[in-house]
C-alpha cells in the first residue's frame, strides 16, 4: 500500500506529468495573451491612423511644415513635430548618456565599496521620481534660470527639456551600466593589471569594451525613455510646432502633441486620425532605434570578439 502511494506520487511529479503540462499550458496561454494584446494595440494604432491619408498625402504628413490641425481645412504637416522629437532625443542623449556612463564607471570601478552602497540606492531612488516632478522642476527652477541667464523670451525650450530628460536617464542608464561593468569577470581585470596596465587603462581597454553590450542596452533604454517621455515635454519644452533653429527654441515633440490635443479633438476627425498617425511614427522611431542598436551591438561583438 505504502509502496503504491509512493509510486503514484512520483508519477504525478514525473517529467511530462500533469504538473509539467499545466505549467507549460499556463506559460503558453499567458504569453499568447500578451502577444495578442500587443497585436491589438498595433492593429488599432494602424486602423485609427490610416484614415488620415484620405485627407492628406503621406509626404504632406511626414514632410509638411505646417501643423494647424484646428483650421479648416486642417494643415497636418508633422515635420516640425518629428524634428522636435528627434532633436530632443538626440540632445538629451548627448547630455544624459555620458553622465550616466561616467557615474557607472565611478560606482562600479572607482568608488570604495561603502560609498558605492550609498550612491547606488540613491541613484535608483532617483529613478522612481515621477516625471511630473521633473517637469515641475523644469517649469519653476530651470526655465526662470535659463530665461534670466541667457536673456531669452522663454525658458521653456529644447535646452530645458533636454537637460531634464538627460537627468531622467541617469538613474536608469547609470545603474544598469553599473551592473554591466560589475559583471565583467575579475579574471579579465587581473590579466590586464598583470600586464602592467593602470586602473584607468584597464577600465578603458578591457572593462568598458567587455561590458559594451550591457552598456549599450542600458543606453538604449534611456534613449527610448527620452523619445517616449510626454509629461516633461508638455511642461518644459515650450510647445511651438516649428523646427528648432537654436538650443533655446521652444519645441513640440510628437508625444506632447498627442497628449495636449487628443482631449480637444472630435473622435473620428482628421485631426484625431492624424494624432494616431503621430503615435505610429513614434512607434516606428523607437523600433528604428532598437534595430540600429541591435546592429551596432552585433557588429561590436564581431570585431571585439566578445561573447560575454
Amino acid at each position: 500500500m505504502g509502496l503504491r502511494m509512493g509510486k503514484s506520487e512520483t508519477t504525478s511529479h514525473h517529467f511530462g506529468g500533469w504538473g509539467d503540462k499545466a505549467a507549460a499550458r499556463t506559460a503558453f496561454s499567458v504569453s499568447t495573451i500578451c502577444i495578442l494584446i500587443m497585436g491589438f494595440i498595433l492593429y488599432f494604432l494602424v486602423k485609427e491612423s490610416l484614415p488620415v491619408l484620405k485627407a492628406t498625402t503621406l509626404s504632406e504628413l511626414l514632410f509638411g511644415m505646417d501643423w494647424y490641425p484646428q483650421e479648416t481645412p486642417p494643415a497636418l504637416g508633422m515635420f516640425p513635430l518629428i524634428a522636435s522629437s528627434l532633436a530632443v532625443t538626440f540632445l538629451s542623449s548627448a547630455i544624459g548618456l555620458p553622465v550616466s556612463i561616467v557615474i557607472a564607471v565611478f560606482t562600479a570601478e572607482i568608488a570604495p565599496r561603502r560609498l558605492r552602497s550609498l550612491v547606488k540606492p540613491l541613484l535608483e531612488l532617483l529613478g522612481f521620481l515621477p516625471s511630473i516632478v521633473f517637469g515641475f522642476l523644469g517649469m519653476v527652477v530651470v526655465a526662470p534660470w535659463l530665461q534670466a541667464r541667457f536673456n531669452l523670451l522663454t525658458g521653456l525650450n529644447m535646452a530645458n527639456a533636454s537637460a531634464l530628460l538627460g537627468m531622467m536617464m541617469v538613474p536608469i542608464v547609470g545603474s544598469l551600466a553599473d551592473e554591466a561593468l560589475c559583471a565583467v569577470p575579475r579574471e579579465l581585470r587581473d590579466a590586464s593589471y598583470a600586464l602592467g596596465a593602470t586602473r584607468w587603462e584597464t577600465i578603458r581597454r578591457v572593462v568598458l569594451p567587455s561590458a559594451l553590450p550591457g552598456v549599450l542596452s542600458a543606453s538604449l533604454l534611456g534613449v527610448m525613455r527620452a523619445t517616449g517621455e510626454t509629461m516633461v515635454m508638455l511642461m518644459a519644452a515650450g510647445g511651438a510646432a516649428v523646427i528648432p533653429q537654436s538650443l533655446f527654441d521652444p519645441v513640440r515633440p510628437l508625444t506632447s502633441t498627442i497628449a495636449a490635443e487628443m482631449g480637444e479633438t472630435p473622435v473620428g476627425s482628421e485631426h484625431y486620425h492624424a494624432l494616431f498617425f503621430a503615435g505610429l511614427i513614434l512607434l516606428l522611431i523607437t523600433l528604428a532605434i532598437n534595430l540600429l542598436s541591435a546592429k551596432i551591438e552585433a557588429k561590436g561583438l564581431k570585431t571585439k570578439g566578445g561573447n560575454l
Partner: protein
Amino acid sequence: MDKTESDLDLPQVRTQNLDLYYGADRVLRSLNFDIPRGCVAAFIGPSGCGKSSYLRCLNRMNDFISGARVEGRVLIDGEDIYASGVDVIALRRRVGMVFQKPNPFPMSIYENVAYGPRLFGVKDRETLDETVRSSLEGAALWNEVKDKLNTPGTGLSGGQQQRLCIARAIATEPEVLLMDEPTSALDPLSTSRIEELIRDLKSRFTVAIVTHNMQQAARISDYTAFFLLGELVEYGTTSQIFTVPVDKRTEDYITGRFG
C-alpha cells in the same frame, strides 16, 4: 638596464624573510629561498598552503587585496620590489603572469597579444606584427591561428586560449614568468602541450609555477618547493625532493599520504 656578469650570476628571484598577512592572518611565514635564472621552479602543497599567495607576491598582485601586508624582502635581479618608490607597473612588465583559468580578453587574437606592447606605447604596425608573430610562435600557437588573427580569442579551445594567454604574457618580454596552476582547467592533451612549452620557455624566462599535480612538477621543473600552512617545508632540486626528501612531511605529501 645593463647587467654586469656578477648580476647574471645572482639568483634571479631571492626571497628573504618574507611574511604575508591578510589582515591579522599570517599567510606566509618567513620564507627564504632563491630561484636561479633560467630555471623552472615548481611550488607544490595542499590547497590553502600559501603557494598561490606567494606567487602573487612576486608581481605584487596582492596589492589589490585590502588588508594585505608584506614584511621581508623579495629581490628580483637584485632589486627589492617592496622598497618604497618601486614602480609597480614597471615591475609587472618584467614579471608576467598566466592564470589558472584561461582569461583571454574579449578581443581578437591579435589584439590580445598586442595588448601589453600597446600599453607601453608601441604603435608601429610592423613592430606590433612582429611581436605578435614571435610571441605566438613562442607559445606554440602561431601555426594554428596565423590565418585567423582577427577572430575572437575567446573562440579558441581551452588549451589554445591558455597558450594565447602565455603569448600575451611573453609579448611584453618579461624576465620572470609566473604560472598559477596553468593546466588545472585543461584536458590531458592540452596539458602536455603546455608542459612541453614550459620546458622551451625556460631558455628565455625564469618560470615560477604553482601546481597541484605532483607528476607535473616532477616532469617540468628544475627546483621544487613544498609549502605547508604558509611555511616553506623544503626546497631543493626536483630530483632530490622527489627521490630523497629530507623532511618527513615532504615525503608523506609526495607519496600521497595526505593532501
